[in-house]
């Protein structure tokens, strides 16, 4: 076989040197310990559909990928989709830092002395995120918001040993709920749902009825899945604490430019999606699971995931970093670990650190405001369309809200198809998770949806509804 550019010793000359050292005549001798009945025949392997069977050139590979991706539909604007992953502009600097091979191609920093830069970057992520959330401790990342929520629920069961109930709002992101259900499947735990008021936010009296001494945690998502701002977060946290339960909050970090930090609202654990902070939507991955806690020893001992701590060199002269509290982790504690997580989303965390550094406190506030403005501009424009309802609930929203089309006499699926024909991708259909909302869809607007984009959407919808 020809030598390959990624495999430097794949030349006859190098192979000969190695085989001489080993005293073998054929490479096959190194595989003799695989029992014959399990060996796959050379021909059989060669003819399996794996790539194009033979190595191909980089250009050929690129052409194949390029031609395939050209099958994706080109849209006139970026989709008006949110629901946990949002399109936010990624500054060029973020991508260029991520492309640096020293970060990109490195492993988990097991050898601290040669990885001090990587550890500092991760420590900075933990510290910047802590400031944004106003929480004390942030881990070095989870996979995404959904899995972070699952882990937070499991953690609450360890902290509140013996309690078997977790309260969630009806307006918890249904995808995150599905993930949490999977994480809880082996455990005898009930997820109890609390409904919403006419404001679209958690019904507090219902929460008070349902909470009891069995409750390990109360979860609150702010803004909630339908986009509404949970005005009474503090009160909800107090109710949780009064019953000895943990108060877990889920957040959309961009909203924290305007909304109160969860640390100020009494949260014990905070989870969230870091993707809006410098990561592309990328069809849903890689994302960045945020996981934060109050500085409490009991919580810290049960926290999942990797943590980087600031320390010094042994001689005490220089600042340095180390992975800390590894005795919680799987490689030390094995089956008694707080989680099985090993590979996380470190590079995504670094992207967020770069992003938060670039934006700073003022940039973040402005960004939140622009998101708010664009969504509220869209709400005003959409509400002017005949039969389109944008105020199903009366609460305040941040940058997404449900739009109901029942009075247009059209099914949302048909509206969606017609919009797509015009190169516009509308919001998330809500009928599956929220049948009570009828023919509704959740529309999201960020700084990337400019006034022109929103006007295009409104014009297209008008055409569709009149057509």
């Amino acid at each position, binding site marked *: *076989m020809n030598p*390959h550019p*990624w*495999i430097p*010793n794949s030349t006859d000359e190098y192979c000969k040197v*190695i085989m001489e050292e080993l005293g073998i005549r054929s490479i096959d001798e190194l*595989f003799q310990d695989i029992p014959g009945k399990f060996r796959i025949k050379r021909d059989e392997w*060669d003819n399996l559909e*794996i790539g194009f*069977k033979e190595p191909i050139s*980089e250009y050929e590979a*690129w052409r194949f*990928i390029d031609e395939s991706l050209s099958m994706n*539909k080109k849209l006139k604007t970026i989709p008006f989709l949110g629901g946990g*992953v949002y*399109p936010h*502009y990624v500054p060029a*600097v973020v991508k*260029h830092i991520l492309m640096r*091979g020293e*970060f*990109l*191609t*490195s492993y*988990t920093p097991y*050898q601290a*002395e*040669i990885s001090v830069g990587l550890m*500092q*970057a991760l420590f900075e992520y933990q510290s910047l995120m*802590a400031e944004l959330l106003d929480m*004390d*401790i*942030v881990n070095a990342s989870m*996979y995404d918001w*959904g899995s972070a929520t699952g882990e937070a629920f499991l953690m609450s069961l360890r902290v509140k040993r013996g309690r078997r109930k977790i309260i969630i709002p009806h307006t918890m992101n249904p995808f995150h709920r599905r993930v949490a259900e999977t994480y809880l*499947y082996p455990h005898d735990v009930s997820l109890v749902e609390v409904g919403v008021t006419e404001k679209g936010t958690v019904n507090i009296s219902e929460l008070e009825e349902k909470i009891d001494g069995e409750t390990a945690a109360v979860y609150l998502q702010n803004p909630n899945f339908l986009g509404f701002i949970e005005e009474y977060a503090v009160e909800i946290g107090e109710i949780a604490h009064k019953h000895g339960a943990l108060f877990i909050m889920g957040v959309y970090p961009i909203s924290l430019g*305007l*909304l*109160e930090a969860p640390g100020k609202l009494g949260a014990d654990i905070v989870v969230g999606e870091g993707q809006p902070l410098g990561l592309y*939507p990328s*069809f849903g991955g890689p*994302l960045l699971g945020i996981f934060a806690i109050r500085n409490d020893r009991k919580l810290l001992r049960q926290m999942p995931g990797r943590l980087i701590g600031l320390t010094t060199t*042994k001689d005490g002269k220089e600042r340095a970093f180390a992975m*800390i509290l590894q005795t919680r982790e*799987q490689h030390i*504690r094995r*089956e008694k670990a707080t989680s*099985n*997580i090993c590979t*996380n989303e*470190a590079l995504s965390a670094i992207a967020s650190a*770069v992003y938060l*550094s*670039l934006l*700073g*406190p003022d940039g973040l506030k402005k960004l939140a*405001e622009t998101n708010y*403005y664009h969504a509220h501009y869209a709400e005003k424009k959409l509400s002017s369309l005949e039969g389109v309802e944008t105020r199903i609930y009366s609460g*305040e929203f941040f940058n997404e809200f449900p739009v109901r089309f029942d009075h247009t006499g059209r099914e949302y699926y048909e509206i969606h198809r017609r919009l797509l024909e015009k190169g516009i991708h509308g919001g998330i259909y809500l009928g599956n998770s929220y049948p009570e909302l009828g023919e509704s869809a959740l529309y999201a607007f960020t700084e990337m949806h400019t006034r022109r984009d929103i006007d295009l959407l409104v014009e297209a919808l008008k055409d569709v509804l009149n057509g």
Partner: protein
Amino acid sequence: MRGVCIVVFRQAKWSEPLIFEIGGDGRIGHIVPEPGEEVRRIVDGINIPEKIKRKKPPRLPRVSEVEVVRHYTRLTQMSYGVDNGPVPLGSCTMKYNPRIGFEAAYDPRITWLHPLQDEDTVQGLLKLLYLLQKWLANITGMDKCTLHPAAGAHGELTGMLVTRKYHDLRGQLNVKKEIIVPDSAHGTNPASASMAGFTVVEVPSGSDGNIDVEALKTVVSEKTAGLMITNPSTLGLFEENIAEIEELIHSVDGLLYYDGANLNGIMGYTRPGDMGFDIAHINIHKTFGSPHGGGGPGAGPVCVKDRVVNEDKSIRLGDLLPGYIVEYDEDNDKYYLLGPGKHSIGLLKAFFGNIGPLIWGFTYILMLGAKGLRLVTEQAVLNTNYFASKIRKVKGFSIPYGENRPRKHEVVVSAEKLYEETGVSALDVAKGLLDAGFYAPTIYFPLIVREALMTEFTESETLENIDKYVERLREISETAYTNPEEARKWPINTSVGRIDEVKANHPKTMAPTWRIYLEKTRK
């Protein structure tokens, strides 16, 4: 043709302040788009209830774009990846990450796709993912794959939850309580089994490195829900008793789980499916060339044999897989997403999967094909055994377990003799390697080898570098036997010297964030 030269290495040392200590009032790093006049006029102000309004801005730094770029560039210069030199971390498969993979994964036709977009708008991406599912099934000899899990351990959890659901649907969950793992297993295996609600039972390895089958027989029972193993094992040895093990586990209706961490050692020679495994995960970021990114993101697809779970209801193991499977409708030439269905364990993350690493891995397999992948395995195995043969001759080092057996993807070297005779430990050896500009092997793992140096060069390493690495280990050995005190000063050529881990972990000084550090130092 080859020459061994002694490496001179100096890592950058910037004494770089934290980002919080850089910059000044009023500086900005990025201009954020603002709403125009007309938008402001129509919206007429921001109306957020007072009690939920942010009162104090977050204490983020105020830095210019220039400062951000310099700061993080300097931090990269105090880091070390495969692009800098060999990273022979055993079981981590730190191979070269072909840059064409980046070009594909970061193509704007992928990066700007929202996960909930209409299938009709993402046909190109779905085609690539469909092919990847098929190729991974062929590589592993399994029937059906999900690309959903985000990492190896996430794949393990998936596999264990599928195992749980399998027994659940067969109405035997009240009996099936135990997962067996060998004592040489990765820590994630017992942790994943435990997260899925199982009790973990450990089984020892024999002196030949294989699982001790007699010991296995004593722990296998009606309670056995399954067995998790890597093959080749973390010792780099092919599990020769796999046929007997497979029969034992299946005889009590347990499922056989394949940890794909070490797949790089067998491609083109055997497949988990051929060996009788029911479930397997694959680490795209190990075997298929996507980068580790300083700890992640990775991707951990899970493939299964589509065996029958429940005859009456005609449920198959593939129906239990989580996430979304890409299917192809030949009649309409259309790709679509299926799942999670009625019997699926559900979702383990919110959306499809880690597209970036998956597309990088797709590109890797696309360019190599079946034949290229066999070449990968052959060259990785040649490199391992070449290193093993060379290191055996260095004083103080040995290769325990199955001493004369060929290794596969990796070899575990023991520095036990060196430690006993000189006091120089595996940790000191690791630090001595850093000083020569090499990353260290995985140390003190697997737990069954004393003073372990678990070494995996992969197919990416040059013969010259392996020679230099051995030469450096020979120098370390010489220093250990002549001047062991010297070894405890290592490393001296890296950005910083040895780290105070006690201070890092002590409750009084522990500082997991800048704000806690400030709080503690103010007191």
